């Protein structure tokens, strides 16, 4: 915050509109090089984004080293106690495990499914508009509604899923009353609808597919490339940037999973579908802020380490490849 307002006095230096437009800089602007009134334009954004995103990130870190007594309302320095407590806590370890299982299944499946769906929806056939509408509708469904919907469809007593299994002559499944199946059903529900589902990935891939000039794919097929060849030579490289984006995005969405759980299992049966954000939610409800903050830092810290390792590995591989190419030349 202080760095923001350290610029404050400048805003009084000149009135709005006192400077010529940025493209044609006059002498005054070349000396001062700025339009101080701009700070008035960005002030609401700065207050909200710095105040409720940047400040909390550091505050969380501070909180994670503190212990707050909810009754006496006193705060004491706890050092690494919260972290130690969490590492010994089976509920937290379970939450991390469930989050990793969910994310590990959800990210690749949603991206592959989205890619397949996008390739289908990119075909030039009749009624493609209707197909696209049907395929895109799940994106706008709230994850909570989706959770509620799936918990009714896959209810072990009255669910239509068991009804269908019965029609197929198969035995009923416990579904949401079984911990392991419940977690897999959450993955299925997450893939099916919500702001990060298969359809969402398909929207992104389709937009990227449509940015590929038709001439490029046509040229490739005229040159005798079969459809797989065209895909490998033209389509796949063009989709690489969005795929990287989706990997990052879907992973962040995966570790933030909450709405689906809240709408369907509420962490149950037992604690078998408690995920990290649900764990933090419960610690806020119990006013255990220190534990909750430490939990978020453990998870995000872990992810950052993984991301850095992956990035470092890629850099290293690229350098090796570069060195190899250099040696060959």
């Amino acid at each position, binding site marked *: 915050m202080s760095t923001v307002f350290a610029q404050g006095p400048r805003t009084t230096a000149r009135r709005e509109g006192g400077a010529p437009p940025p493209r044609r800089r006059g002498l005054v602007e070349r000396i001062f090089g700025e339009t101080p009134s701009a700070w008035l334009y960005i002030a609401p954004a700065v207050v909200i984004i710095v105040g409720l995103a940047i400040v909390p990130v550091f505050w969380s870190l501070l909180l994670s080293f503190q212990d707050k007594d909810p009754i006496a309302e006193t705060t004491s320095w706890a050092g690494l106690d919260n972290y130690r407590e969490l590492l010994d806590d089976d509920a937290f370890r379970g939450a991390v495990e469930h989050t990793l299982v969910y994310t590990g299944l959800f990210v690749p499946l949603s991206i592959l499914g989205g890619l397949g769906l996008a390739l289908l929806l990119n075909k030039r056939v009749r009624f493609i508009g209707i197909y696209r509408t*049907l395929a895109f509708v799940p994106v706008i469904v709230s994850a909570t509604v989706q959770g509620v919907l799936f918990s009714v469809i896959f209810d072990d007593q009255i669910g239509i899923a068991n009804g269908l299994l019965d029609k197929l002559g198969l035995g009923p499944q416990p579904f949401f009353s079984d911990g392991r199946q419940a977690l897999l059903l959450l993955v299925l529900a997450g893939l099916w609808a919500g702001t990060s589902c298969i359809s969402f990935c398909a929207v992104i891939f389709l937009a990227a597919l449509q940015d590929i000039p038709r001439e490029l794919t046509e040229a490739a097929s005229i040159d005798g490339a079969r459809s797989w060849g065209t895909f490998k030579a033209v389509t796949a490289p063009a989709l690489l940037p969005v795929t990287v984006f989706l990997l990052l995005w879907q992973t962040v969405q995966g570790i933030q999973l909450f709405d689906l759980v809240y709408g369907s299992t509420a962490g149950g049966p037992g604690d078998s579908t408690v995920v990290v954000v649900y764990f933090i939610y419960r610690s806020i409800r119990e006013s255990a802020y220190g534990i909750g903050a430490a939990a978020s830092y453990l998870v995000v810290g872990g992810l950052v380490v993984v991301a850095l390792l992956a990035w470092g590995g890629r850099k290293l591989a690229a350098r090796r490849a570069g060195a190899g190419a250099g040696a060959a030349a």
Partner: protein
Amino acid sequence: MTTLRRKLPFDPWHLALLPATLLLAAPLLWMVLASFMTSEQLYRFPPTIIPSSLHLDGYDYLFGNTEVGTWFLNSLIVSGVCVVANVLFCSMAGYAFARMRFRGSGVMLTIMLATLVIPFQLTLIPTFIIMENLGLIDTLGALIVPSLVTPFGVFLLRQFFLALPPELEEAAYMDGCSRWKILWTIVLPLARPALATVAVVTFLLTWNDVSWPAIAISSDGNNTLPLGVASFRSRSEQQPSAIMAANVIATLPVLLAFLAAQKTFVRSIASGAVKG
């Protein structure tokens, strides 16, 4: 492929497209159907897939036993205020970042970019404490304030403004038009597609969000629609058709908006990723 194409009166891709898209839409279609069934129809084993008759029992129960009208209004207020605020504040900030030179612009832009990738759980607890100190916990204000401005909107509009030709603005400037007036009378009317995207994304995110409302709201009368639906489900497991009716009502506004402006929706969702 070619032999198949000759035999069929239609493109063989329909054979993949039709089942795939129907499968994706199936849970939603069933949700609508189930909301018009009675609990008896749903409780029968094996459960009914296509009902023989339609009923309004679920809706009757829902409206008679819950504050669904209040939830709906709450959602409308939260989403409405956030959409208007985002369009306004993101335009202002985006315009400043695109067209004005000022000390600290680079730093502020980088800071905002960084917040795009901060996972939500890191900011959760301090945000809760801040809202508590502002006396906003368990009010709609707690849901509105953190979503007044989104970094996504600022970036999207900045990119859009940068792509506009500056000549028009310069001419207006020479004629003595203030920057504020230029923004309102020249830039924003040109930016309608980008503003629509910001509005759609803000509406979708605020209407559907439950993570933060679940933490910030505790009394039934302050529930948003999805939050109310979830709490209703956990309270009345015996009323599946009423639960489905609640689901339908929570989805309907977004669904109607989507069907009315599908192109804008799809472009908005894609713009977040491809250009963002």
